[in-house]
C-alpha cells in the first residue's frame, strides 16, 4: 500500500479542509480507501470531488435536460457534444467558463479559457472552425472594469488569433452584479468526419498510456478547487494558481493530434483540463472499465524536484493523454516529434480497476477507480422558488423622454452599443470560410469546400433570469434559436454554460432550478437538445451573487449558402414587415431599466409554440428567397432592431405611417417592448409575404419602407443615421480610451 512520503505534510483535519472537503466527504474517502489517504490521494479526491469536476450540486438538475434527437451523435458526458450535420460530417462543440482565473489575471485567464475549450473539441477528432465568447463585466464605472475588459479581450484574441481559429461571435454585457465576478465563457465549434469521432474511454490490458504536448510545471495546482470556492478578500493569496497559455504549442498540438487521428493508432484520448493528469487518467480508465498504472518519473517536467502530488494536480496547459494501440508508439512519436512536442509513454492500462501511481518504482498512490467515480457526492441542495414580479401595464406609465431621444440613448448604452471594438481585436476571418462576420444575429461559417454552412450564436438575458428564472431560461434558448433562424439556419442543438452564485443558498439554487426548468421546456418544444455544457457556481463575492446567467450556445445548419439572410437593409425602397405579435411588454425591458430607471418587473412571457411557428415561417421565407434582410427582435425591441438594420445597411427607414396607426399599446411600449417571437424582415414582394403569413396564421404587418439617411419613427420624429451611429459605435471605444 502507498506509504506517506517523507517531508510531506501529513493529512490533518486542517489539510482536509484546505482541500475543500467537508467531514462527510472525508468519511466517505475513508470508507472507499479503507484506510487514511496520503496527501497525494487526498489531493486526487479533492479535485475529483470538487464542484468543478463532480457537478455535485447541479447533477440532479442537469439530468432533466433533453439531450436526445435524431441529430445527436453524442450528448453530454464526453469532452464535447457531437451532432450530425449530413454529408458524413459531424459538428462538435461545447462552451466552458474561465470566470475566476479571468478575474484574477484577465489576459491569461481568458487566453487559457480559449485554449481549454479548443482542446475539448479537437480531442474528439474535430478541426476547430470557430470560437465564440460570452462576456459579462461589472458596472462600467467600477474601477476594475476597464482593465478587465481590456485584458480579457486581448487574452481571447491573443490565443485564438495565434492558433488560427476565427472568433466569430459572442456577447458582452455589463452589470454591477459582476463587479467581483466577471464571466468569461468560451465556446468552440469543430467539424469532424462523423465516422471518426474519438472518445476518452480506454480499455485493453497493457495498452500504453501516452503523454503529449507541453511539459508539466507547478501551474494552477488547486486551480480546480479554487474554481469552486467562493471569493473573499484574501483571494489575492490564491493568485499563484493562475497559468500562462502557450497558443503556439496549442496550434502544434492541434495539427499533431489531427495527423495522428488520421491513423488507427488511438484507442482513447483525453485532454488534460482542470485537475490535469488526475481527471484525464481517471476518465479514460473509468469510462473504459479498466485500471491504470502510471510511472510518474516518466512525466515530462518543466521544473526539478516535482512531487507526485504536484504532477497529478498540475494544470499546466496544452497537454493531452492518450491510450494507443500497442506497437503504434513509434508512429505516434514520429508525428509529435515532427511538431516539436513532448511525447512520453508514462504507463499502461490494467484490469485491476485501480489507479496505481509509482515514483522510482515505489507505489506512492493507490486508489479504486469506480468507487471514487461513483461515490462522487451528489447533493439535492435545498432550493427556494423565486417570487414572481408584477407585470407593467403599458398604458399605465408616462414616458420621461420622447421615443426618438430614448432610442438615441439606448443605442449608446453599454449593453446595446456596438461591440466592434471587441471583435475587431479578434481574427474573425482566418480559415477563409467566415460568410457572416460578427455584427449580425448569428455568425455563419462555411463548411470548408462546400456550399453549406454552420450558424452559431451565444445568448442569455440575465435580467430576465433574475426576475423570473423559468422564463429567463426559456427565453435564452428561444433567443438562441431565433438568432440562428434569422440568418436562415435550421437550429440543431445547444451547449450551455450555467453561471450562478453560491448553490448552498436556497434562493440561488432556486434560480438554478428555475432556469433549468425553462431551458428544458424550450429545448423540448423547439427540438433543440443540449449536447454539452458547463457549470460555474460560487460566482459571488462577500455574499453578492451575480445575476443568474445560463448562457446558451446554439449551432444550426445551412444547407445552401445562397439562401441566407443578413440583418443589414439591402436596398432602399423595400418594404419592412414585422413578423409576430406586439403587445408592448415593457416588463424587465432595457427601456425601463436604462431610460426610465424603473425597478425590476416581470420579463416577457415565452410562448414556445408561437416561437416555433413564427420562426419556421421566417426561415421558410428566407429559403424561398422572399426576404432581402432579417433581424430578430430582442433587447430594446422594435425600435432598436430597426436601428440596427439601418446602421448595418447604411440605409434609413420610415415607419411613421404604421406608428400613427398605433394606439394600443401606446407608442413607447410598441417601439421598445420586448415581446418575444418577433422578427423584422424586408422584402420586394410584400403582398406575397403577407399572404403566406396569413396562410401560416403568423401575425405580419407592414411597418414602412427602407430608404433615406435617417430613421423616421413617427411624424416629426426623425433621427439621422449619422447621429445614431456616432453614439452606437462611439460608446465602447470612448469608454476604453478614457
Amino acid at each position: 500500500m502507498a506509504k506517506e512520503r517523507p517531508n510531506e505534510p501529513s493529512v490533518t483535519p486542517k489539510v482536509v479542509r484546505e482541500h475543500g472537503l467537508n467531514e462527510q466527504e472525508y468519511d466517505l474517502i475513508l470508507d472507499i480507501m479503507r484506510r487514511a489517504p496520503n496527501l497525494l490521494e487526498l489531493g486526487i479526491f479533492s479535485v475529483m470531488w470538487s464542484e468543478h469536476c463532480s457537478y455535485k450540486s447541479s447533477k440532479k438538475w442537469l439530468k432533466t435536460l433533453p439531450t436526445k434527437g435524431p441529430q445527436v451523435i453524442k450528448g453530454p458526458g464526453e469532452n464535447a457534444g457531437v451532432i450530425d450535420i449530413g454529408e458524413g460530417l459531424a459538428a462538435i462543440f461545447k462552451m466552458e467558463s474561465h470566470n475566476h482565473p479571468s478575474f484574477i489575471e484577465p489576459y491569461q485567464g481568458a487566453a487559457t479559457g480559449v485554449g481549454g475549450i479548443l482542446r475539448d473539441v479537437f480531442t474528439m477528432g474535430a478541426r476547430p472552425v470557430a470560437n465564440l465568447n460570452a462576456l459579462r463585466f461589472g458596472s462600467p464605472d467600477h474601477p476594475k472594469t476597464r482593465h478587465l475588459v481590456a485584458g480579457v479581450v486581448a487574452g481571447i484574441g491573443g490565443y485564438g488569433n495565434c492558433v488560427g481559429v476565427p472568433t466569430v461571435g459572442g456577447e458582452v454585457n455589463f452589470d454591477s452584479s459582476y463587479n467581483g465576478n466577471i464571466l468569461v465563457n468560451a465556446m468552440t465549434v469543430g467539424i469532424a468526419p462523423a465516422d471518426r469521432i474519438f472518445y476518452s474511454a480506454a480499455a485493453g490490458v497493457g495498452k500504453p498510456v501516452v503523454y503529449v504536448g507541453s511539459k508539466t510545471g507547478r501551474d494552477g495546482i488547486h486551480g480546480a478547487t479554487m474554481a469552486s470556492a467562493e471569493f473573499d478578500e484574501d483571494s489575492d493569496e490564491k493568485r499563484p494558481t493562475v497559468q500562462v497559455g502557450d497558443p503556439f504549442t496549442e496550434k502544434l498540438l492541434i495539427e499533431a493530434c489531427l495527423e495522428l487521428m488520421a491513423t488507427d493508432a488511438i484507442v482513447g484520448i483525453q485532454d488534460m483540463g482542470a485537475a490535469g493528469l488526475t481527471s484525464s487518467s481517471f476518465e479514460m480508465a473509468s469510462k473504459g472499465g479498466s485500471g491504470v498504472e502510471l510511472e510518474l518519473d516518466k512525466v515530462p517536467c518543466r521544473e526539478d524536484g516535482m512531487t507526485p502530488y504536484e504532477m497529478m494536480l498540475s494544470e499546466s496547459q496544452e497537454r493531452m493523454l492518450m491510450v494507443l494501440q500497442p506497437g503504434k508508439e513509434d508512429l505516434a512519436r514520429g508525428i509529435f516529434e515532427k511538431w516539436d512536442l513532448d511525447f512520453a509513454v508514462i504507463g499502461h492500462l490494467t484490469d485491476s480497476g485501480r489507479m496505481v501511481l509509482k515514483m522510482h518504482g515505489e507505489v506512492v498512490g493507490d486508489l479504486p477507480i469506480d468507487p471514487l467515480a461513483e461515490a462522487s457526492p451528489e447533493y439535492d441542495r435545498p432550493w427556494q422558488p423565486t417570487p414572481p414580479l408584477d407585470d407593467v401595464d403599458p398604458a399605465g406609465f408616462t414616458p420621461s423622454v420622447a421615443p426618438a431621444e430614448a432610442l438615441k440613448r439606448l443605442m449608446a448604452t453599454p449593453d446595446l452599443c456596438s461591440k466592434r471594438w471587441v471583435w475587431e481585436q479578434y481574427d474573425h476571418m482566418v480559415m477563409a470560410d467566415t460568410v457572416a462576420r460578427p455584427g449580425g444575429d448569428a455568425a455563419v461559417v462555411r463548411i470548408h469546400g462546400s456550399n453549406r454552412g454552420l450558424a452559431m450564436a451565444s445568448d442569455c438575458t440575465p435580467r430576465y433570469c433574475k426576475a423570473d428564472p423559468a422564463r429567463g431560461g426559456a427565453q435564452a434558448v428561444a433567443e438562441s434559436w431565433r438568432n440562428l433562424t434569422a440568418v436562415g439556419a435550421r437550429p440543431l442543438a445547444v451547449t450551455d454554460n450555467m453561471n450562478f452564485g453560491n448553490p448552498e443558498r436556497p434562493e440561488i439554487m432556486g434560480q438554478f432550478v428555475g432556469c433549468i426548468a425553462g431551458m428544458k421546456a424550450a429545448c423540448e418544444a423547439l427540438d433543440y437538445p443540449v449536447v454539452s455544457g458547463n457549470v460555474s457556481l460560487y460566482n459571488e463575492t462577500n455574499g453578492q451573487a451575480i445575476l443568474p446567467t445560463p448562457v446558451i450556445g446554439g449551432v444550426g445548419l445551412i444547407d445552401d449558402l445562397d439562401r441566407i439572410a443578413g440583418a443589414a437593409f439591402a436596398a432602399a425602397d423595400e418594404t419592412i414587415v414585422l413578423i409576430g405579435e406586439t403587445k408592448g411588454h415593457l416588463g424587465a425591458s432595457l427601456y425601463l431599466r436604462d431610460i426610465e430607471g424603473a425597478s425590476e418587473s416581470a420579463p416577457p412571457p415565452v410562448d414556445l409554440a408561437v416561437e416555433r411557428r413564427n420562426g419556421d415561417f421566417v426561415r421558410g421565407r428566407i429559403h424561398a428567397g422572399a426576404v432581402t434582410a432579417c433581424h430578430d427582435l430582442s433587447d430594446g425591441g422594435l425600435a432598436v432592431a430597426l436601428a440596427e438594420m439601418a446602421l448595418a445597411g447604411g440605409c434609413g427607414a420610415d415607419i411613421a405611417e404604421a406608428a400613427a396607426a398605433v394606439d394600443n399599446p401606446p407608442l413607447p411600449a410598441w417601439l421598445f417592448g420586448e415581446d418575444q417571437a418577433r422578427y423584422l424582415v424586408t422584402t420586394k414582394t410584400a403582398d406575397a409575404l403577407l399572404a403566406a403569413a396569413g396562410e401560416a396564421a403568423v401575425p405580419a404587418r407592414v411597418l414602412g419602407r427602407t430608404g433615406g439617411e435617417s430613421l423616421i419613427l413617427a411624424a416629426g420624429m426623425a433621427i439621422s443615421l449619422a447621429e445614431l451611429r456616432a453614439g452606437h459605435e462611439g460608446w465602447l471605444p470612448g469608454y476604453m480610451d478614457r
Partner: protein
Amino acid sequence: MKARVHVTLKNGVLDPQGKAIEHALVSLGFDGIDDVRQGKVIEFSLTESDPAKARANVEAMCEKLLANTVIENYAIELDA
C-alpha cells in the same frame, strides 16, 4: 533622474517566449545554453529628484501598471 524597471516572470511561471527562443537558438546550432527567460525593461526619466520619493513613485507605477504582479516580479534601478 532616470528610472529603469526590470520586469521578469516569477519562477515556475511558464515562459513560452523563452522556451521558443531556446528552441530556435539550439536549432541554429548554438549549444550549451539553458533556462532561457525573456523579460522587459522599461526606462524613463523622472523630474522627481528626491531618490526616496522617486523610488516610492516608481514602485507605485510598477504595482499599478508596469508589472503584472500576479505572474511577474519587478526590480527598480534609479540613477541621478
